[in-house]
């Protein structure tokens, strides 16, 4: 049985928090740069130009791309043959977040109680989704999530009779309601099926998928393309100030569901769609 120590996990999480907030993934960066070339709205083009310049400054001067360095969201896959020694895994991940957000000069944006609202001052606790998988590796994926776009996310418990048309309407409604608030151009993560929380988790996970890769399921890939086209006809544009680049991608994940239901979750993400993964 393979063994890893939580010190190694803490070190990796620390680095990943910093890396994710300074550099966008190659696919995201390319999508924004391409949009700048193809945008026809005047203000829209100007805003995309600022976003490109912003990515450069973030990289060179090591300043976070966005001041909302997010709540630290993790998707963790634990190989069932892996043994973790040291401390509790959740505590280790939170320790990595604490170190990363402090040492990396990232913003501490978490309040300990949603109503009393006192800042925890180290950006913990993280939100961690665990998955047990075959093998002896540990896969860590961090997606720091800003709340300008998170606040514009929606869940719809549709009826089976609403079908594909109902799903499309729900997604378009969420994007249109979000308008300028979600910092367009956005990436739209959609979860269809499962139950109430499964749909929401899939929608968040969908945001971490490469924006250039469609769903492997042909009927879903068609829907992703059709929705992207429709969203980019709304005219919302970069910054919500008019243009064709309202979304850079629509990523949909699906799961089995109940005979009586059709849950649809739409997780909006701004153009600062950050995610970094490592396998230990």
């Amino acid at each position, binding site marked *: 049985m393979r063994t890893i120590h939580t010190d190694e996990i803490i070190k990796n999480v620390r680095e990943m928090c910093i890396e994710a907030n300074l550099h966008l993934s190659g696919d995201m960066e390319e999508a924004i740069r391409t949009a700048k070339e193809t945008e026809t709205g005047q203000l*829209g083009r100007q805003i995309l130009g600022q976003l490109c310049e912003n990515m450069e400054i973030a990289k060179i001067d090591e*300043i976070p791309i966005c001041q909302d360095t997010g709540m630290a969201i993790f998707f963790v896959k634990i190989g069932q043959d892996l043994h973790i020694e040291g401390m509790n895994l959740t505590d280790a991940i939170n320790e990595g977040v604490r170190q990363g957000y402090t040492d990396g000069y990232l913003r501490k944006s978490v309040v300990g109680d949603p109503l009393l609202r006192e800042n925890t001052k180290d950006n913990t606790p993280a939100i961690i989704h665990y998955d047990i998988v075959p093998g002896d590796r540990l896969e860590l994926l961090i997606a720091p999530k800003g709340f300008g776009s998170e606040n514009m996310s929606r869940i719809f418990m549709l009826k089976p009779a609403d079908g594909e048309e109902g799903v499309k309407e729900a997604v378009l409604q969420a994007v249109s309601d979000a308008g*300028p608030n979600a910092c367009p151009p956005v990436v739209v993560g959609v979860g269809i099926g499962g139950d109430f929380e499964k749909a929401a988790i899939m929608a968040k996970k969908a945001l971490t998928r490469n924006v250039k890769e469609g769903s492997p399921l042909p009927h879903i890939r068609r829907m992703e393309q059709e929705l992207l086209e429709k969203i980019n006809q709304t005219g919302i544009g970069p*910054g919500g100030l008019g243009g064709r680049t309202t979304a850079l991608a629509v990523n949909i994940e699906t799961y089995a569901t109940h005979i009586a239901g059709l849950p649809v979750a739409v997780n909006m993400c701004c153009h600062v769609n950050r995610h970094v993964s490592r396998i230990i």
Partner: protein
Amino acid sequence: MEKKIQAPFKKEELVSLKAGDYVYITGTIYSARDAAHKRMYESMLKGEKIPLELKDNVIYYLGPTPAKEGQVIGSAGPTTSSRMDKYTPLLLEHGLNGMIGKGKRSREVIDSIVKNKAVYFAAVGGAGALLSKCIRKSEVIAYEDLGTEAVRRMEVENFPVIVVIDSEGNNLYETAVEEFKNSQK
């Protein structure tokens, strides 16, 4: 139209700013977001003094990342303005002239902007590294315990913003999207 303006500015100056203008602000502005707004609002309702002079001034809805050594401020882009809507009309009644944020405002805020002759600017959301370069000085002047949400006095130079709601109530978020759609027909 591209314009330059010195902050703080008077009502007579801001009425020339029109929705859609691309404006570079130079001068003194203040940062305040959710928690600072709540505190100022509650103090004002009790008739207490608040830590910044609202008359003629501009508030930037901002909670920056911490500055590293040698930096004036960390990443410093706008946050969503609508969360401040509850508090804004009272601030406008007390002479606040400008707000910098991003996203839609409520009907009440728009009506108050027109009534009090003020202006609402958007900065580009998610361009915090770029915008930080326009901030030359930054000093926490109140509510230090709020951390990133503390009130800061900042000196800015050519800080780029777009007039979204002007003192007549014209709203660029509505007109720009319609105009773009019509231009595609």
